[in-house]
């Protein structure tokens, strides 16, 4: 069956990244996780249109792609804010008062864990160990790490994001 792929669904730059990564593996399907990342990098999250687009690239049923994407926590299957705040609350961060950091952000942004600010700027979630245990407590905003957090430091970081 002929599959028509609408390249204009993504930017030229994203398309180049997709082509590069899909040619790197002995078997094409191995690139699936990478392509999910790349499309999410551009779109911010993976809606059903994105899943269908990726499914066509791999000649897989959309349900199969969705099943893979939904297994991994880093794929946002629902829209998130411009800045996704991911605070680690696992053991080393917990005993270094990560809960206070979460409470501080909740209060500052007026949202609870799992929610997005009404202006769509921030989404707050808690995550498992980020591998920053020596500089706990730690968080990730989008793909950047912030470590040795204090409420004051969190204020500075969040205030600097436009």
């Amino acid at each position, binding site marked *: 069956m002929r599959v028509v792929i609408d390249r204009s669904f993504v930017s030229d730059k994203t398309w180049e990244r997709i082509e590069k990564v899909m040619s790197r593996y002995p078997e094409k399907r*191995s690139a699936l996780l990478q392509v999910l*990342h790349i499309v999410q990098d551009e779109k911010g999250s993976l809606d059903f249109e994105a899943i269908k687009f990726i499914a066509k690239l791999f000649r897989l049923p959309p349900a199969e792609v969705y099943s893979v994407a939904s297994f991994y926590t880093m*794929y946002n299957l629902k829209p998130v804010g411009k800045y996704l705040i991911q605070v680690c609350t696992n053991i080393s961060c917990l005993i270094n008062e990560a809960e206070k950091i979460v409470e501080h952000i909740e209060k500052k942004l007026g949202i609870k864990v799992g929610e997005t600010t009404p202006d769509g700027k921030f989404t707050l979630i808690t995550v498992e160990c980020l591998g920053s*245990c020596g500089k706990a407590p730690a968080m990730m905003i989008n793909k950047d790490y912030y470590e040795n957090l204090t409420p004051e430091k969190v204020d500075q970081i969040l205030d600097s994001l436009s």
Partner: protein
Amino acid sequence: MGEMKLLLANVDKPDSEKLETFRAAGGYERLRKALFEMKPEEIVEEVKKSGLRGRGGAGFPTGIKWGFIPKTDEPKYLVCNADEGEPGTFKDRVIIEKDPHLLLEGIAISAYAIGAHEAFIYIRGEYEYGAQVLEKAVEEAEAAGIIGKNALGSGYDIKITVHRGAGAYVCGEETALLNSLEGRRGHPRIRPPFPASKGLYQHPTIINNVETLASVPFIVDKGGDWYASLGTEKSKGTKLFSISGHVKKPGVYELVLGTPFEELLYDIAGGIREGHKLKAVIPGGSSTPMLRAEEIAGVLLDYESLQAAGSMLGSGAVIVMDDSTCIVKAVYRMAKFYEHESCGQCTPCREGTRWIVQILTRIMKGQGRMEDLDVLLDISEIMGGNCLCPLGDAALGPLVSGIKKFRDEFEYHIKHGTCPVGG
């Protein structure tokens, strides 16, 4: 014994991640030696002699693992496990970010040793910076003709690809990692067949941890006997320890195996923060049973000593908890982690981790019943050894040791509905 810097020799240099820094320190000369002066089987032999054991947590002898690769003509693969996700562990990140070429050299030598022309680095998705550092290092090394087609002019091809995971602890388990690398859900596979005979794309595959592979160049350089002269009778070489929690100087330290636990805790990591006393440690990552403060006296940091003390060396992730820590809360938090990360494929783990969290939640809310503690231990007996992969057993490490060693604290929560240390 004590500190010794092999793996960490370069990490504090300026521009440590660059090819020229690495080469100035003799980097890639071990690869040259391997490709031009050694047969693959000689390298396997040296690694066997060295006594090097898997540094990801399981501690399986690396040379023996390599020896399981069949001598057939089919494609073979090497996979570097950089899916560092065991809570408390942040040692591989240092090598990845600060000395990526050391890792690439280790991968290239090991690929040659097992007859693989293609290697993958499966790095956890959260380590985006590390993935970019590695990709840049691969580009640099390819452009310099060190890896890629005809590596160093030897006629041997070694292709290395950086592959990002996407947030699933279970993918650190090697067969789940392979499924993930094939573009599937990260479900562990039933073994046998083991990856050494049927791994990636059903071909022979070796999966080794970052630190394990980064140790290989030193074995090629100075010989297996030299490496085996470091450490104890059965625990050879140096090991990275990530120490976190309530110590003054948390961080990653490289120690000769067999160094006293108290030397790491008090001399190297600076001891417990002022005004507090040591309560417990988790010696090898959140999956390993915790030890009470008095239990670490005289214990050495090596595979056998920690096992004799009732725990495990694991990934070398030492989590230190002082007297401000509520053990019930710590156990509850780790239980939630394993519940979240259970892949759901097999019943004892999927159901067991959920029941554990439900019961611990009840205790945390002050609604626990005294018989809950025995129910939790019953669940652990049903889960133990009955899951497809080690995650189910891993979930029991903190739970069972926590209840057995701090039962009075759990009972206090149940009796009074509050925490004795205000956690």
